[in-house]
């Protein structure tokens, strides 16, 4: 695919556009100061902070279980994996092993959340590139996932569905059947959407060779998740530092080759299939037993510090917890995937066209709630 090379006119004037924070395709409240020469982007400066809520400071005055609802509101399209990271960090510091049933439940919910998050990504990404219809197809499926969440924990978006030491509830009767019914019909839907997009000439022209980032650059910038794997680096926290029971299930980590928007698209589509595979195995093996380990009523991790990360749908979501031995964290720092992925945006769009900017924002799959916290 040829890249566009537009030469600047000698007397061309630079123009600066304020792209957002109220713009249809900046996914929330991202503001970009875009310097353009005609349609060509000379530079982009992301301005963030419009959704800052001081989450990390709030953590410091909450009990550990009280922190969990705050994590829901970081990456609000993937609350379950946010919960998972936090409780994982506390459990590691306290040396708690959660019961196997709880671990499998976490994996099922986390993979469902990955599907839901990727569905939001596909829907909005396609919409930004001008394809309206996949949006509605994706949201139909996402709704079914949210129904499953609602049935399990009562909430659809801000799930707050994990506790230090396990899971707060056991499954409702028949939940596994409904979940199985969902994942059985899901791969066919993915193929449907791929039929609309994957070989579509326009889709390919809009995504192939757009927002390229090499594997070395991707590592240099600290990209994680699909943006890193799209560049051909096989790095998935679930494989390299397995948590819960990810070492007991089989799944592949799809990678791309060119590091462009199209490869990241293919990676995420394949990840959805792999998630279905994981859920299927988890449902088969789901052991009986308690869902909560024996933990003290008041969670007081010993003095010390720990870094624990999970593979969130958007990339590596890490929690760095410092405990002074009290019932609240001394410091709880979040390593957000989106924030670090967003840094590479100016690098990826420099020299490309305004239309590519929205494609690249879409492909980075950012959520401002997590960037600003």
């Amino acid at each position, binding site marked *: 695919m040829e890249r566009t090379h537009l030469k600047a006119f000698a007397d061309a004037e630079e123009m600066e556009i304020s792209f957002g924070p109220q713009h249809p395709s900046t996914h929330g409240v991202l503001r970009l100061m875009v310097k353009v020469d005609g349609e060509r982007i000379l530079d982009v400066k992301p301005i963030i902070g419009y959704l800052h809520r001081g989450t990390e400071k709030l953590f410091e005055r909450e009990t550990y279980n009280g922190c969990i609802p705050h994590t829901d509101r970081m990456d609000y399209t993937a609350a379950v994996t946010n919960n998972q990271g936090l409780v994982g960090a506390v459990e590691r510091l306290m040396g708690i092993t959660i019961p196997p049933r709880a671990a499998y439940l976490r994996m099922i919910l986390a993979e469902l959340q990955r599907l839901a998050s990727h569905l939001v990504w596909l829907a909005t990404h396609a919409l930004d*590139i001008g394809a*309206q*219809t996949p949006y509605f197809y994706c949201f139909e499926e996402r709704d079914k996932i949210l129904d499953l969440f609602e049935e399990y924990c009562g909430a659809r978006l801000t799930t707050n569905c994990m506790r230090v030491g396990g899971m707060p509830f056991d499954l409702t009767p028949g939940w596994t059947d409904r979940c199985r019914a969902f994942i059985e019909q899901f791969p066919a839907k993915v193929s449907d959407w791929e039929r609309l997009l994957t070989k579509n000439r326009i889709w390919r*022209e809009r995504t192939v060779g757009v927002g390229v980032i090499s594997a070395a650059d991707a590592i240099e910038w600290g990209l994680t998740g699909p943006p890193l794997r799209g560049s051909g680096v096989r790095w998935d926290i679930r494989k390299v530092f397995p948590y819960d029971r990810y070492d007991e299930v089989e799944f592949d980590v799809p990678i791309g080759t060119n590091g462009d928007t199209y490869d990241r698209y293919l990676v995420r589509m394949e990840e959805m299939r792999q998630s279905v595979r994981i859920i299927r195995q988890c449902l088969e093996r789901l052991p009986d037993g308690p869902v909560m380990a024996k933990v003290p009523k008041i969670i007081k991790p010993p003095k010390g510090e720990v870094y624990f990360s999970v593979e969130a749908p958007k990339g590596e979501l890490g929690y760095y917890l410092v405990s002074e031995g009290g019932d609240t964290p001394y410091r709880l720092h979040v390593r957000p995937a989106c924030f670090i992925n967003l840094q590479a945006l100016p690098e990826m769009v420099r020299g490309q066209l305004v239309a590519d900017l929205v494609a690249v924002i879409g492909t980075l799959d950012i959520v401002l709630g997590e960037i600003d916290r």
Partner: protein
Amino acid sequence: MTYLVIPLVKIVVILLVLILGAAYLTFFERKILAYIQIRLGPNRVGPKGWLQAIADALKLFVKEDLTPARSEKFVFLLAPVLIIVPALLVFAVIPFGPSDIWRLTDINVALLFVLGVSSVGIYGIILGGWSSNNKYSLMGGLRSAAQLISYEVPMGFAVVTVVVMAGSLSLVRIVEVQRELGVWFFLPGIVALFVYFVCGVAETNRNPFDLPEAESELVGGFHTEYSGMKWAFFFLGEYANMIVISAMATVLFFGGWLPPFPNLLAPLWALPAVAWVPPPFWFLLKVAAFIFLYMWFRGTFPRYRFDQLMRLGWKVLLPVSLANLMVVALGVLILGGRS
């Protein structure tokens, strides 16, 4: 009196039908898109939502009409007019049926008239984008200008192909020739039809060529700053232009008001049960089919990027339409077509 009253009545009828039609196209578009996208579409206003278009129009009438403080006031006002007037003017020469009752006028250079008048609409978009004094609008206007100019050329060649086959610039004559030949021009001119319709979609700024108003990139493109009735004019202009492109495609390639297979099924069309169907019925049916195609596109395709769009226009459609014109002209020469 007959010089004045009858044309005036016709004008009023055509305008009313057109504007109502354009308004209802929005309703149908929403319904069709809704069914493509597993939703219901508007179904609250009136029986099954049928009054939605009226409600929208009323809403636009009472909306506050904002003019940006630093805009070029007169041009800002002029732009919507420049969009809607040419779109409506084209219908002066479109023949809806064989006899004089079914059309306003038949001029011998109708085709030139249509091409010329519809090109004026582009001024509305450029001026609207420029006068808003908004960067997004300006970019939308410029995109649109580039797009319209590059697509006008291959579209011209596609239309010339039909002229070569028909040997006339009169729209009525073009349909008559299709009747006499017993074959509609889409068969020998399938390439021209393709080029014409693709260019038509591009000229009306519709998906997948809706860059000038690309919502996800340029917010609203050239009409970002417009509101109320001025915005409605842009909107109506877009839909009226869709009808124009579809109507012209019908006239040029699909035998205008002729029923399907006019010669082959002639006995059927002569049956009293169908003979009473007025010719405009067939015309509108074909127009509706084209408009459905437009909406189908919108439900299916992503959007082209600016440079890709230009490449498609200049590097693909232009050579194809030119080569096709040569081939068709040669064919007409060999087969001894009409001169």
